[in-house]
């Protein structure tokens, strides 16, 4: 009798502790976001968005940073998406259970666990030195493309796997070739799942800093990149640079730039959730 009442007390206390921990986690998240907005929100204005970097914090802006982020975003997307989807299709639809497929699978899950800074070292040597791209937008995009490739491949594979066999049977039964079946039936159906993965991967690209530092991207670039061969900076690099400075004015600048960065990341993540939810409501087989 005594024991069981003690058990109940333990049970109830854990319920309280569990709830408290969970709320605490969410509270930290809220505090972070609130604090950033508290420090930086008033700093954001038209001049901040359109000014070039400067030694004076009141004059400094993020024009080069956000345009650089868009450059990197677009070029990374263009190089990673086709390769990622193709590889996913190959593994899921063509090379199932072969030895090669097995090696590829193990290799990809290992790549997914390689720290991002190592990709920086790879990009520095291969794209920067060997291919002579230096610290250009192109070198940065290729490096980040390799970094997010495993995410896109895994997302593609999982969405393809969810396509019911009956759908493929129907296409094959009408005389469609393998590629026709994949292109006209399988891909359209798994499109939203693949898109979700791609958007999440790209949201990572927006916040990635370490590999770009390693390939030599600069924090101070006094012009907007015009071609893929130009030097560039991105939002997180700019933030990193400002955080490292002693004057409080630059910390405010950093907070303001973080707000912009967070807005992009949250929009991308929200978009991913939106695609996923809409798809799960539509697919009703």
């Amino acid at each position, binding site marked *: 009798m005594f024991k069981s009442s003690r*058990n*109940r007390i*333990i*049970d109830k206390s*854990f*319920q309280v502790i*569990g*709830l408290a921990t*969970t709320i*605490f*986690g969410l509270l*930290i998240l809220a505090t*972070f976001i609130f*604090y950033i907005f508290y420090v930086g929100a008033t700093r954001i204005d038209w001049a901040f968005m359109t000014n070039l970097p400067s030694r004076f914090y009141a004059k400094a802006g993020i024009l080069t940073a956000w345009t650089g982020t868009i450059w990197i975003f677009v070029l990374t997307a263009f190089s990673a998406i086709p*390769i990622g989807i*193709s*590889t996913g*299709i*190959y593994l899921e639809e*063509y*090379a199932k259970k072969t030895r090669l497929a097995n090696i*590829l699978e193990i*290799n*990809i*899950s*290992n790549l997914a*666990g*390689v*720290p991002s*800074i*190592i990709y*920086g*070292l*790879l990009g*520095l040597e*291969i794209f920067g*030195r060997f291919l002579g791209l230096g610290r250009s937008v192109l070198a940065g995009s290729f490096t980040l493309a390799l970094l997010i*490739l495993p995410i896109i491949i895994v997302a593609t594979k999982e969405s393809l796997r969810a396509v019911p066999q009956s759908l493929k049977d129907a296409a094959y039964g009408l005389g469609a*070739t*393998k*590629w026709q079946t994949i292109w006209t039936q399988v891909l359209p159906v798994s499109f939203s799942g693949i898109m979700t993965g791609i958007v*999440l991967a790209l949201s*990572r690209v*927006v*916040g990635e*800093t*370490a590999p770009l*530092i*390693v390939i*030599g991207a600069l924090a101070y670039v006094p012009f907007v990149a015009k071609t893929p061969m130009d030097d560039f900076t991105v939002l*997180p690099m700019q*933030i*990193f640079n400002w*955080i490292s400075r002693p004057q409080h004015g630059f*910390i405010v600048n950093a907070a303001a730039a973080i707000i912009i*960065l967070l807005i992009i*990341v*949250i929009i991308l*993540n929200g978009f991913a*959730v939106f695609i996923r939810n809409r798809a799960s409501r539509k697919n009703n087989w």
Partner: protein
Amino acid sequence: MFTRKIKELIIERALLLSALITILTTLGIIWVLLSESFAFFKVVSLWDFLTDPEWTPLFTQKHYGILSLVCGTILTTGIAILVAVPSGLTIAVYLNEYSTKRMRNIVKPLLEILAAIPSIVYGFFALIVITPVLQYFFPSVSGFNALSAGIVMGIMIIPFISSLSEDVLNAVPNSLREASYGMGATKFQTSFKVLVPAASSGIIASIILAISRAIGETMIVAIAAGQQPNLTLNPTVPIETITAYIVQVSLGDVPQGSIAYKTIFAAGLTLFVFTFILNNISFWVNKKFKQQYV
């Protein structure tokens, strides 16, 4: 008819080609790390690298002992794990057995935002918020330290442990759950005496994955933990991790081909070996779990 068959073949080959890029990436990583490290070890003996207590490649008095960087890495990672494992597991068990399904479906994705926030933002927090708070309570804490970086890193990896562990707890067959409740066990007893042990390998896999992630984390430690290689377990003084060192060298203007340039590849190789081993242990343990139940 014939051309269609050729078209199919070409497509398959093209797809295979893109798949091979992932193999090339791995080979590229290994080749880059090994070839530059090889050049490095021609100058510095492996013995010195592994045993010298000091790491000062950028000073005039040069020492190349990776231990102090490894020590800094282990220190920040250890603190992060001390934060993330208890809270992550508590959240996982709570969401799995105690909370309503509705709450779980809302809270889990919200917590996952923690992992989606760029680490540069966490670095900002560690330096601008957490360190001053720590200094308020313990005035001896220096401006750069392992503690604030570790705590913030711990917060960042909570969702790795909470979400992945919740998934495996959820995958434990209901029959086990019912058997325990059927004997009059409380939720707490069922969770910690039946479910957690049953899901232990999956939970361990998620923890190892989180450790691997913490070891490779760069921006938080580069911003908040300092740039002073230090063979110490004191969390209140500046230290330097492997990743932070690579950033430090990359930001400076070390000439390509110099020995200082090569140190980042030797450091990178050390980092790669650590994470590679951890990731593979994690896969292996996870596979065991899947064989058991799924």
